[in-house]
């Protein structure tokens, strides 16, 4: 009994002061020059929590990123696969429990999860402006907002994604390239189209794109949440979705649970059109051997949503210096270029091409994206920004009430 009490007392004396210490260290970090931070991080270990569902991305992180971090900065990179929703909850619990020293150093995060994490005070920062590569090669306007939520330097950019559709040229000659044409196509090809059930990431982005297309464009929503505007416009979206529902896969009685399921249906030819929030997705699948060589991608001419994905540092990261060094490396020209190559990943750079040296620019232009991936010249003209997160939540809930349970 006595011994237990002693152990408990010891535990508290040991844990109490570390919190104070960590706080002063955080404040110092903001003032420390980056070269000094790199010095501090040398020989340390950085744990990067990120979505682990893509084997090729995991390989890229484990080989290229881990290798470069070791040789350039003598940092050991540990990749931990975890969905963003899960690590946000892990951090929430750690914060509630008063755990000052966690085990996550860097997160791959954006959108709703960033908003959740930021509102709950789970992130360290601002730090993005401190990173030399963000200062040099990133357009500050491009990283001012994340799904309409101000970034304020609490995230560093890492990549760019844009919504594309996929089709097999051996099956379909001319894919529909507007939402109106898509509706006709679905009616003409019953059972050959479906979308993942929101709140799945891809399915949710698909219905946002329909929302833009059938309600007169994205610009009206960017000013922030307007309940009256939403109440006026949303019925058009439910109308469109309910019009096509009886003609969807399985007569619209059910929807794929996630985008991986839709990929499977598309690869087996059960549906004629696939979709992805990642332009190189089809090319990756061809390289992997799951999609036929004849698959190509296309974008909707009435708007294709893009977003920047980011990295962020949790409030209780045990190695914030190391996390900043990794975040800085990820947005470097070298890392972005390696990431851009389809055999590695094919993820689009979050850099501003205007800020690159002519030589670096040529290195990016020289990358062969593969026949299935559209280039910036096709993607950029139709790119439209993501909707503010409040709309996203309302659309997902509205989909349940007005489409699923209608």
């Amino acid at each position, binding site marked *: 009994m006595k011994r237990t009490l002693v152990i408990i007392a010891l535990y508290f004396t040991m844990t109490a002061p570390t919190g104070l210490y960590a706080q002063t260290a955080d404040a110092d970090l903001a003032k420390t020059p980056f070269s000094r931070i790199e010095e501090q991080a040398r020989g340390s270990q950085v744990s990067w929590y990120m979505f682990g569902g893509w084997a090729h991305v995991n390989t890229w992180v484990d080989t290229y990123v881990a290798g470069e971090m070791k040789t350039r900065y003598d940092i050991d990179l540990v990749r931990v696969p975890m*969905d963003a929703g899960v690590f946000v909850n892990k951090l929430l619990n750690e914060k509630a429990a008063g755990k000052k020293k966690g085990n996550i150093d860097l997160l791959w995060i954006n959108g709703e999860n960033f908003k959740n994490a930021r509102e709950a005070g789970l992130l360290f920062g601002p730090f993005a402006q401190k990173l030399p590569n963000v200062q040099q090669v990133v357009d500050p306007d491009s990283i001012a907002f994340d799904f309409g939520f101000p970034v304020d330097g609490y995230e560093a950019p890492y990549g760019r994604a844009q919504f594309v559709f996929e089709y097999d040229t051996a099956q379909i000659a001319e894919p529909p390239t507007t939402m109106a044409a898509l509706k006709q196509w679905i009616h003409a090809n019953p059972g050959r189209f479906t979308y993942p059930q929101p709140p799945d990431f891809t399915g949710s982005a698909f219905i946002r794109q329909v929302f833009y297309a059938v309600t007169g464009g994205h610009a009206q929503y960017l000013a922030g949440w307007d309940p009256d505007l939403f109440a006026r416009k949303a019925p058009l979206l439910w109308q469109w979705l309910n019009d096509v529902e009886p003609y969807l896969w*399985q007569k619209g009685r*059910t929807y794929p*649970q996630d985008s991986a399921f839709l990929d499977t249906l598309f690869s*087996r030819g059960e549906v004629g059109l696939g979709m992805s929030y990642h332009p190189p997705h089809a090319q990756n699948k061809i390289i992997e051997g799951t999609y036929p060589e004849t698959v190509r991608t296309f974008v909707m001419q009435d708007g294709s949503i893009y977003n920047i994905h980011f990295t962020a540092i949790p409030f209780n990261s045990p190695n914030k210096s190391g996390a900043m060094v990794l975040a800085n490396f990820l947005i470097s020209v070298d890392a972005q270029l390696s990431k851009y190559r389809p055999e590695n990943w094919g993820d689009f750079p979050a850099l501003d091409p205007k800020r690159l040296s002519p030589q670096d620019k040529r290195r990016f232009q020289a990358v062969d994206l593969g026949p299935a991936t559209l280039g910036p010249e096709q993607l950029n003209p139709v790119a439209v920004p993501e909707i503010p997160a409040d709309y996203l939540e309302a659309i997902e809930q509205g989909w349940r009430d007005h489409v699923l*349970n209608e």
Partner: protein
Amino acid sequence: MSSTSSLILKLSPLALPYLALFCGGVFLTVCQSFGLLTPLPYPGGMVDAYLELLTDSSFFASFVFSLGVAAVSAASAVTIGTLLAYRIWKLPGRLATVALVYKIPLVLPHIAVAFVVLVFWSQSGILASAAHQLGLIRSMTEFPNVLYSGWGIGMILAYTLKGTPFAMLLVMAMLVRFDARQIQTADMLGASGLRIFFSVVLPRLAPAMHTGFIILFLYSFGAFDIPYILSESRPGMLSIQVYNLYFKHDLARRPEAMAILTIMFGFAVLFIVAYSKVVRRLEDGVRKL
């Protein structure tokens, strides 16, 4: 020190973590369902989340559907499990050892069983192509649409597959202690095989069957992995709804997720109490052997 308090002290290494983790978790869930101790300050009233759920007809549809899937799969697992266990128990010794293969699904994780069902029963699956090869159906799409029928048949199949060996295990444990001479006696007195099973064997196995049913029923009512692979969009399973609310929606909606969990937990407790009461009353009416 009295013997009770010393017993409590001796149990404390086990009991304390249990109390802290389990009761702490339940306590936090209930609090958050009322909008207290939430990650973000909750602007709504204490019972807003519950009102939101109780006025949502799709919540009731999901609740009833989850109950249905759980009840049908638990009942079939216990029925099949009991019959199989009895057959195996009656087998000669050497064959009974071979019959141990029934334990294989026990070691398979639920998610693996879900994939087994998916691979076998989908319209592009193994059974469909076998039927097509044998000429039973002209094209693969003629194969019955088992997985997307709107009745949760895929999940019921998976839970039954996974639950049957579990029920067998429980029933086997009872049978091992069962005195075979009772059957011989009944046989000599001229009872038929069916009569022996229902009047002599079954009453002895009932406790194991009840336990098995409660465990399987409540597990399939709340579990997530099999629905994640096999559930349909409408009506959805409650566990999927909780998962989506918890992980994929705005933090402001945390109380709703927790309210569903609280309702499910409350239901489970009520169910156990009510079920045991009913069983006890039924058994009181039965003459003990």
